[in-house]
Structures are given as C-alpha cells and as structure tokens.
C-alpha cells in the first residue's frame, strides 16, 4: 500500500445533484442556477413533484425539448431551450421577481466560486479588473429565496479551496447559503460554523478538512 496522499474524487456531479434533489421536499418551488444545478431537475425521485421557476418568465419548466423541437422563445435563464409542463404559467420580469424577491420560491440551487464559513456566497465576479462584470439574477435570488443550496466541486481545478473563512471574491450575498453539496461532503452552515453532515464514500473527515480553508465541525447524520 502506498503511503502518499491518495486521489480523492468522491461523488460524481450526478450523485451530487441527486443528493440535492433528495433534500427538496415534495411540492417545493425551486429555481435552479446555470451549470451543475441544472442536473438536479433530472434527479427528482419518482413520486415527488417539484415546480421549477426560471427568472425569465416561466413557472413549470419541463425537460429539454426533443431533438428538432426547440423553440427560441421558450428558454431558461441560461438561454437554453426548455419545455413547459402542463399547468405552467408565463409572466413578465416584474412578476417573476415578485416571486423571487418576495420570498415565494422555496429553494434555489446555485453554483459557487467561494462560500464562507458564515454562508457568504461569491459566484458572480472574480473581481478581475479586466473582466466584464455581469450579475444577472444571482443577487436577487440569494436575497429573496427562502433556502439557498450551493452545489460545487469542493476545490477549484487548481485544487484551491472554495470553502473559505472569508470570501476574497466580490460577494453575491452575505450569510445566505444554508447547505453546500460538494463532491466530497454535504455541509450545513450553522450559527456554530460549518458542520459536515455527510461524507462521500471513502472520504474521511480529515481529507475534507484538508481541502477546506475554514474550520469544520464533524456532525455526520446517521443516515
């Protein structure tokens, strides 16, 4: 057996999405961010009905359109063609953000650049002076939606921690994230700090600590 640090991979993106989906109560209204969060839609357990909102004016987002049936006027916030379920509703941006900012959406699942131990989220800008700043609806979602779940790789491609003591990138919102689903663990943001609730198979608490730039509390649920 080699004693060098082994490669820790943990859950796949689909497994992460399935973990998020399993934590969404039946009947929830959910907004899914662009990227990995979109996978959550495909992982909703049988018998559970959740309603997806997209901020560009649709409640009741359905699956991707079948090949050749895409409608350029029926898209999601990522500007990809989608479909609408029976019982959907279309509305304008004013009404859409009444839903989001008025606290009517139960859960929003977002990607992250960084999350702090207190639940601060940075996911819209690297702060690079040469970058074109673009925020979209991210700040509205974190300010208005009841629960914010983050789904993200535990570290950047370069191996740097994304879960940190304080975000160094510009914030999207302060103290907004409730749970973080990474490839290594499921973490909850609590008053006491970041609690590890679940570890990916074969991953140890110590390994997660090593890849996290904030103190962690071991609070695994027996489930």
């Amino acid at each position, binding site marked *: 057996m080699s004693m060098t640090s082994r490669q820790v991979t943990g859950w796949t993106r689909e497994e992460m999405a399935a973990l998020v989906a399993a934590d969404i109560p*039946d*009947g929830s*209204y959910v907004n899914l961010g662009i990227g990995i969060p979109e996978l959550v839609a495909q992982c909703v357990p049988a018998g559970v*009905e959740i*309603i997806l*909102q997209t901020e560009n004016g649709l*409640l*009741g987002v359905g699956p991707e359109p079948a090949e050749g049936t895409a409608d350029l006027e029926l898209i999601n916030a990522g500007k990809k063609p989608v479909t*609408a379920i*029976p*019982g*959907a*509703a*279309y*509305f304008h941006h004013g*009404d859409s*953000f*009444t*839903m989001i*900012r*008025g*606290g*009517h*959406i139960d859960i929003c699942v977002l990607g992250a650049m960084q999350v702090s131990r207190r639940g601060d989220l940075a996911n819209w800008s690297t702060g690079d002076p040469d970058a074109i700043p673009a925020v979209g609806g991210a700040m509205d979602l974190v*300010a*208005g939606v009841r629960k914010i779940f983050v789904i993200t790789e535990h570290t950047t491609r370069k191996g740097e921690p994304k879960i940190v003591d304080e975000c160094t990138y510009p914030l999207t919102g302060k103290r907004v994230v409730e749970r973080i689903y990474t490839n290594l663990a499921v973490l909850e943001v609590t008053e006491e700090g970041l609690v590890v609730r679940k570890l990916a198979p074969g991953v140890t608490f110590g390994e997660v600590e090593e890849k996290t730039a904030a103190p962690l509390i071991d609070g695994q649920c027996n489930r």
Partner: protein
Amino acid sequence: MIDKQVSSPHEAITSIHDGATVMIGGFGEAGSPIELIHALVDHGVGNLTVISNNTGSGRVGLAALIANGQVRKMICSYPRSANSMVFPELFRAGKIELELVPQGTLAERIRAGGAGIPAFYTATSVGTQLAEGKESRTFDGREYVLEHGLRADFALVKAEKADRYGNLIYNKTAGNFGPIMCTAAETAIVQVREVVEVGEIDPECVVTPGIFVSRVVTVASPEQESALVAAGSVYP
C-alpha cells in the same frame, strides 16, 4: 402530487388564528369571497386585522364578520358605501379601528408586500391629511411620501377557475385586489367556481401562478351579496 384542493370553506380557513391579519379580496361584492368569510364567521376567532377595500354591506359577508365582533381593525380605502351600516356604527362607537389608505396606495402597499419591498415613495396624498405624520422626500423637484409594504397571515380570495397547482384565472372586474393579495399573504386561500384539469388553463392567460396560492376550495354557485342584502339576510 401537488394538490391544493381542500373539501370545504371551513377546512380552508380553519388555521386562521386569533389576532391574524387577513386580506380579503373584492371591490364591493365583486370578487368578495363570501363563503370563505362566512366560514370565518362560523370559525369565530377574533382580534383580526382585515385589509379590504370596503367594509361590506348589510349583515352578510364582511359586514357579518365585523358585526360578529371579530375584527379589531380595518385597513381600507372606502369603508362606507350604500347599505353599509355595520362598520359605521361600530366606528362611531369607538369599537373598531380604521386605517384609511388611498386605494392606489393600498394596492401598491399590498403589491410591495408581495414583492419583498418594505417601503416605497408615492405622490399620492401629498399635501393632505392622509400624509400627516408620514416621512416625505423630494425627488426631481416633486414631493413624495414614504409608504410601507403590507403583508398578511392569510388572504381570502375569490377567483373563477383553478387547477390543482393553484393557478388562477378571474372573471372580469371581480379580480381587482385578489391577484396582489395572493402574493402578499403567507397563506392564500381561494374559492373558485370550478377546478379544472392541469393544462386546461392557457399558460399565457394565468393571472395568479400557483406559487402564490396555498389552498383552493370549490364553491360552484357562490351567494350574491347584493341579493342577500336585498332579501334582508343576516349571517349566521
């Protein structure tokens, strides 16, 4: 499966508690959810703050709720109208409180409450008694007053059709305050003439998307307030 239907007006309103703030839709009798209000009269909880454009007529509907002593305070724009005696009597006797709000400010305060806006500025009422004691501020040379968003624990609303998701369409001018009240209440309770299959309401024509609705109850043939008043009905 999501299904917001409940089987009776009584079941729909039974969680309304003493001291609750309740928005009630309707402009006069048009859009007034009379069966839900009557169930609330039967339910009997008191100390309610009711937000509604008017105060009812005769001794049925909202007027019956007020006559039954369940309402501590009314927030409305027009508390007197033809055949409205209950509120005026109690008000003159100092037995009910009134917060008088211009109709458009009332609508906007409800809409703001539903949209997460705690306060906004408006030109309505500037220079009048109703602006007294309110903060004012000048933007671009014009004076405005600060008004606050309104939220409620419950909304009682009448619509035309719903599906099991709670998507709603209304009938003509009976919509009035209903759609904005659904957005501003923790629990929006809606009586409809008919519940249709999911998919039957055109998604382009939904007025209240189901996200704003908690419970739906079918009242296929609602009572007409004016007919009851004309007949001298007293509820209960």
